[in-house]
């Protein structure tokens, strides 16, 4: 391939990434308290639409970002996994709230201690629940990741689960 062609492809890829990061179709998998803050973020005061992620798609086939919002119990975990499997590539996962990040203070028989035990997670938004500002910050981090993927041509690895949590 001539040199200028590869230059064009990489520029095109970057442009695609730019377009893609501002047209996020999200699937809000809302289970618990964090859903209230999710609502607040999505509505007029904080207006997630400014970041191009305004339109929630409630079908996994039409979504490319899975927002896991709220505690996942062991009863719910298979459902979450299945929804994640149903989403088409490319797909990203955002863990919204501390229960999805680590399990939070529900360290008991019923809850999954962090969804990263069952799914690869791209962005963690801690907080119980996170404030809307925090959610927007997490969303921008995700946009950076999407952009980076198109710029370098390879997917940034999902966040590592810290060693200490496995114990």
């Amino acid at each position: 391939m001539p040199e200028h062609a590869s230059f064009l492809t990489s520029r095109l890829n970057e442009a695609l990434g730019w377009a893609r990061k501002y047209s996020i179709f999200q699937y809000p998998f809302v289970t618990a308290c964090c859903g209230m803050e999710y609502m607040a973020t999505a509505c007029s005061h904080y207006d997630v639409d400014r970041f191009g992620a305004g339109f929630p798609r409630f079908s996994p086939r039409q979504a490319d970002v899975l927002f896991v919002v709220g505690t996942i119990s062991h009863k719910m975990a298979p459902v979450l996994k299945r929804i994640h499997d149903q989403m088409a590539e490319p797909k990203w996962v955002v863990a919204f709230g501390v229960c999805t990040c680590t399990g939070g203070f529900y360290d008991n028989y019923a809850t999954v201690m962090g969804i990263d035990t069952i799914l690869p997670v791209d962005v963690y938004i801690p907080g119980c629940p996170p404030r809307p500002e925090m959610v927007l910050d997490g969303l921008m981090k995700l946009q950076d990741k999407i952009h980076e993927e198109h710029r370098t041509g390879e997917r940034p690895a999902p966040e590592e689960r810290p060693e200490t949590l496995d114990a």
Partner: protein
Amino acid sequence: MTTLIERVASRFPDAVASSHAWRGDETVVLRREGLIEAARFVKEDPDLAMNFLMDLSAVDYSAFGKGPAPAFFSSSGVAVRPTPNIPDEDPWPGPPSSERFAVVYHFFSTTHKHRLRFVVPVGEDEPEVDSLVTLWPGANWLEREVWDLFGIRFKGHPDLRRILMYEEFEGHPLRKDYPVNKRQPLIGPVN
């Protein structure tokens, strides 16, 4: 005026094992044979008219008072004394019986605005009491929950299956011998 306890006790002298009104909560400890009759009585008697079955739950008394000693000194901690305006003439008589479980019913009457509590001790060997579904349809789910979390069966319940946990779950998590963080995941970790 006779208290609610006296009314129930005079009507069912054999079924009532004991009673108390600690902190103003009138409580009747019933033998389980007499439960369904007594429940029907409090629901239908015009002076009691308990039309609400407000709550139905259970307590596992197997670890009552047997917890670890306080961390450093037994004198640590604060035993709180009540103020005089809350009735507390008699101390609480203690767990209802030596049996492991107690099923607890809370009734309320919208006509008389009074509350009554039934406590039915249930043994570990045969954890079964009569179902109240025929009297209050709301007992259906509440009894399922008690079965799910405590493993107490309800005789005559139309559909006794787990409600909060999943079918594959083994054991009953609110029993005191179930460790708080013993997990039974349905799916394994990501590979």
